[in-house]
């Protein structure tokens, strides 16, 4: 009996010690998180500049219809008569008949403003986030039609199901207080940054670019600017890295559909080879069928 008691005491001591250790660790972790963690948590959003309009947003979301919808960043819009986001490329006429319209759900409203301007609005309940209009607007137009996660619909899954399938890795976690990534806002930020850095480099005034905040009138709309290539477009020319030995064996499965219309300019070859030595190692690691 005495032996049993001792055994129990020993076990009790071990358990007590482990528990105390665990509690201290948990308390420490809570303290660390409280000190180092962010007070604000994040939500998912897609970066319109990375988006390639693959169509996954419409189908990969856990919701049907998707929480991603087309958003019209109106201050960037050219108010074109013939909108590339609105009209299909191959069309018999310019009537707003179904065969002439890109949107499969007729979710874009086209309203006459004054000659030659038309305004385009998204009828959100109809929009399914297929990105067909976004593609047209991005290829030939101003890129004012973009996809965005609509946070009144989004369930904010811990892991966004669309992000997991996005071929462009365009989904990012953004702070809850700034849940949208609008192009106009980004351009404005960039402009402000240039103003700060450029030290008076004359920038042509853009239209006020914060659309959500307040409806704006066309201040500075007088500049029919030459299409400019903003700094965002400048490819990051990295120094050519050291040569890498060619990987052993790699697959030749070309999955690029090479769609019907190849956009002008997009045919330009991938940037000249700039691989690091690691990539060779990597493609050997990953083997044939994985690419």
């Amino acid at each position, binding site marked *: 009996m005495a032996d049993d008691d001792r055994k129990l005491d020993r076990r009790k001591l071990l358990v007590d010690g482990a528990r105390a250790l665990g509690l201290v660790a948990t308390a420490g972790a809570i303290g660390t998180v409280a000190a180092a963690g*962010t007070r604000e948590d994040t939500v998912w959003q897609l970066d319109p500049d990375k988006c390639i309009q693959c169509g996954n947003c419409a189908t990969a979301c*856990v919701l049907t219809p998707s929480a991603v919808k087309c958003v019209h960043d109106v201050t960037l819009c050219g108010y074109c008569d013939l909108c590339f986001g609105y009209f299909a490329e191959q069309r018999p006429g310019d009537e707003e008949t179904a065969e002439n319209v890109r949107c499969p759900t007729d979710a874009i409203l086209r309203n006459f403003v004054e000659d030659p*301007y038309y305004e385009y609005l998204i009828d959100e309940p109809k929009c399914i986030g297929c990105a067909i209009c976004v593609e047209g607007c991005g290829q030939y137009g101003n890129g004012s039609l973009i996809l965005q996660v609509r946070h009144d619909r989004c369930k904010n899954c811990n892991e966004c199901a669309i992000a997991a399938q996005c071929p462009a890795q365009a989904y990012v976690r953004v702070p809850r207080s700034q849940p949208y990534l609008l192009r106009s806002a980004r351009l404005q930020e960039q402009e402000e940054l240039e103003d700060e850095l450029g030290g008076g480099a004359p920038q042509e005034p853009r239209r006020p670019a914060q659309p959500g905040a307040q409806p704006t009138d066309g201040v500075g709309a007088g500049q029919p600017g030459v299409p400019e290539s903003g700094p965002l477009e400048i490819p990051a020319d990295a120094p050519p890295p050291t040569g890498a030995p060619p990987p052993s064996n790699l697959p030749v499965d070309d999955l690029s559909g090479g769609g019907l219309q190849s956009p002008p300019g997009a045919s330009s070859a991938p940037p000249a080879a700039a691989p690091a030595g690691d990539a060779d190692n990597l493609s050997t690691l990953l083997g044939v069928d994985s690419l």
Partner: protein
Amino acid sequence: MSRSFVAVIVLAALLLPGLALAAERFPPPEFSFDYQFPRVRVPGPRTELFAWIDVVVLLGTLGLATWLVLKKRSRLEIFLLTVFALLYFGFYRAGCVCPIGAIQNVALAIGSADYVLPVTIGLFFLLPVGFALLFGRVFCSSVCPLGAAQEMVVLRPLRVPLWLERGLGVIPFVYLGVAVFFAWVGTDFFICRYDPYVSFFRLDGPAHMLIAGAVLLGIGTFIGRPYCRFLCPLGAIFRVLAPLSRWHVRLGGDHCVTCHLCADACPYNAIRPPTEAERTRPPSTGRATLGAIMIVIPLAIAMGALLGNASSSLLLRASPTATLSARVYAEQEGIVEGTIEQSEAFYAQGQAAGGLHREAAEIVRRFEVGSTVLGGFIGMVIGWQLLAVSLRRTRTTYEIDPAACVSCGRCYRSCPIEVARKAGRTVTPVETSE
């Protein structure tokens, strides 16, 4: 007029060097009147306040569950709280963030410098862990929405043989290891992707997960809480922590009349019957067991680590960045023809491949480290589980295994000692054994 205007513009557009940023290809309109731009609707997500309300509700339900399980000891009230958890954390909150998934956020925050753990999510993981250390698996009983959903469907629970229960009990640890690994390398949130019940809470989701949820709920009618027992990674953590708890569900104790009613009532196989009296082994057996532990476990860890390290390249295929880097390299070296969606997207962003390859190299390194640790961990779990079969404890009464007990409170209704105690009578073995 407008036709030709557009044609000119199109020509201008064609001359553009790149298409990465298409903005401003067409000049902004010059309206002749004071045109009001339509408002861009930017509906916000739930405010931060709600995240804190969730934390408060979590703490409240944990506290209430603890009180109901350990003090009030009433199945009905525990069940009502379970219903509340199902409604609030399940259907109202629609699943995210849950303490099970929060494991991954913690792992990601440890692994990635870019991700800072939000305090609310950290608390969602740590509060249940703290409670488990003190009070056993009270979280499982009536706070966890996944547990609650399964609790509702238990109809005719079958008894799973203990050897099978133990064997399948390895799965949650492996699941935990894999999930932590993928979160730590920043590739995937495994637990969330394969959460069988979240689609059910949302009544929407991918078809295969809806089917998986329905199947698991179906199985749950005759095997109590299959997810909690044989899959749940947080359950794996609790399996380790709950046995350390100071207070957890206990029955009769010294008054136990070994009537077996509690074990019959438990649908989760968490009540162990008394062992035969002559189980006391000579000390030499104990020493032999200890020796075996000291040999088998390190051996299992080493084996696992080796296997894990070897599987690193296989796991690496789950990383989109690594596969993209390899693909881009192969394309640029002319090893493969043409491009794929992913590489097109990469080129469209106009970045040099060097940065991508460097990023991928870092990921490769992390995968190698991570998979080695993961393999070692799995080896340890399997090694330990093998030994645990041979470890025996002597029990003179029916005892609740705190590792397996989810504190549902069913046994309180069937234990004669409990029933008598509630009725204000003290019961001695003689009295109840008629």
